[in-house]
């Protein structure tokens, strides 16, 4: 059993259930896809905040608030776990909306530097995103932009919660989502 004294002497931070602190390097990931379908058709697929049937990683959504600022949706993920996301901005005319993750469930715990750490099912923190569709005549471009920190807020993060883990997880959701959206819209 590893002693906790080393970590304690560094002034161990208090871990709260809401991860509000973060590391020093904020991450950004943006992906775009061109869809051979009119923008309005693509928007029709994604425009309801409570409907993520186009996103493969999500098994189901329960939501309140419709498409009003402050609306909250809870995503149940296919690989287990839940995410809670709050709608920050909604602009039907611009075919765009912004949201942020306010809660992430824990998938399992690990022991790192002698301390038990909860690994979130989506290994990110302070995650905010925006999705937007641009009309290009008969086709459209969907851009999905995200900003976040790695899940582990202290230094020397474990592999499960470092920047690479965050970037890989976010990248996978975006890629799969945009590709599926394209497939649905081009049917």
């Amino acid at each position, binding site marked *: 059993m590893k002693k906790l004294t080393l970590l304690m002497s*560094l*002034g161990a*931070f*208090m871990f709260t259930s809401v991860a*509000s*602190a973060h590391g*020093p*390097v*904020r*991450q*950004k990931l943006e992906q775009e896809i061109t869809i051979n379908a009119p923008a309005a058709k693509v928007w029709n697929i994604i425009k309801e905040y409570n409907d993520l049937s186009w996103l493969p990683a999500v098994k189901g959504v329960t939501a309140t608030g419709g498409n009003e600022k402050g609306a909250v949706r809870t995503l149940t993920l296919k690989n287990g776990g839940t995410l809670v996301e709050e709608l*920050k901005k909604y602009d039907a005319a611009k075919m765009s909306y912004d949201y*942020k993750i306010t809660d992430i469930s824990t998938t399992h715990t690990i022991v790192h530097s002698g301390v038990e750490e909860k690994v979130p099912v989506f290994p990110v923190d302070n995650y*905010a995103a*925006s999705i937007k569709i641009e009309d290009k005549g008969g086709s459209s471009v969907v851009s999905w*932009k995200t*900003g976040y920190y790695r899940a582990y807020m*202290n*230094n020397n993060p474990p592999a499960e919660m470092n920047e690479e883990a965050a970037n890989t997880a976010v990248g996978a959701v975006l890629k799969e989502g945009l590709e599926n959206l394209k497939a649905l819209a081009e049917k």
Partner: protein
Amino acid sequence: MGVAAVFLYSPVQAAPFAYITNQLGDSVSVINPQTNTVENTIPVLGKPAGVAVAPNGERVYASTPEAKGVAVIDTKTNAVISTIKLSEGALGIAVSPDNARLYVADWYQNSVSVIDTQSLQAVGTIAVEKSPSGLMVSSNNQFLYVANRISNSVSQIDLKTLQTKNVTPVGKHPFGLMLDSKNEQLYTANVQSDDVSVLDTKTMHLIATIKVNKLPYTVALAKNDSLLFVTNQEDGNVSVIDTKTLKVIKEITVGDKPEGISTHSDDVHVYVANWFDNTVSVIDADTLEVVETIKTGSGSRAFGQFFSR
């Protein structure tokens, strides 16, 4: 032939420049405010975030957490000439008004390193509270003020002794802070409580708390300390506070996820780094409007005082 009369003409001081750290682009954009264009992009490895410009304009220091230290830029050549090895917690950074000392807050170690700017060696360490972020030296070089993010407090350090003179609780997660030009009032942006704390430096008492918008990160003063500008990262706008009435008088929309903010020496133009948009918004403090948006590099943070005088 005769002795050539060497007429040493002192050129008019070159226009001050703004140095913007682009954290994800591993670079620093050098903006010339006369044209509001980026004249140089300096490669700086290590995910530069914090920035401090020496008052004499000769050096710019950028904290590079991934390179575990600070990069030293020579403004004549616009290149990194040296690096200072500290730790991966190096983020908040400030230079003393006499150019002699560099203070670097260690985000993880709860301390501030004191660096001699000539030798670039650490000459002292100041113990502060948890997760020190923004910091600033008083213009008379008497005190260093440090925002202790996780402790929700501000430390006032006596620079003769490097000892803490006062610690004052402020709002939740203070990140950036700013002292007025008379060294009398101190303002902190409190990220988690969505407000600004105002302290009287003589007593180090909290004299006011002003609600702003979501996730306020940094603050800057303009117009002879009469206006305080606060970047609200989540809302993509800047709150403007009248420092006499301590009330918000306007909200100015800037880019996405604004963070760093600093005022040009003309005391009128306030520059804001928009991290998500990779741009800098220029606000005119007379009209309280954005007059220009400048494209910088990826992930512009510019956390610190990023203008040369």
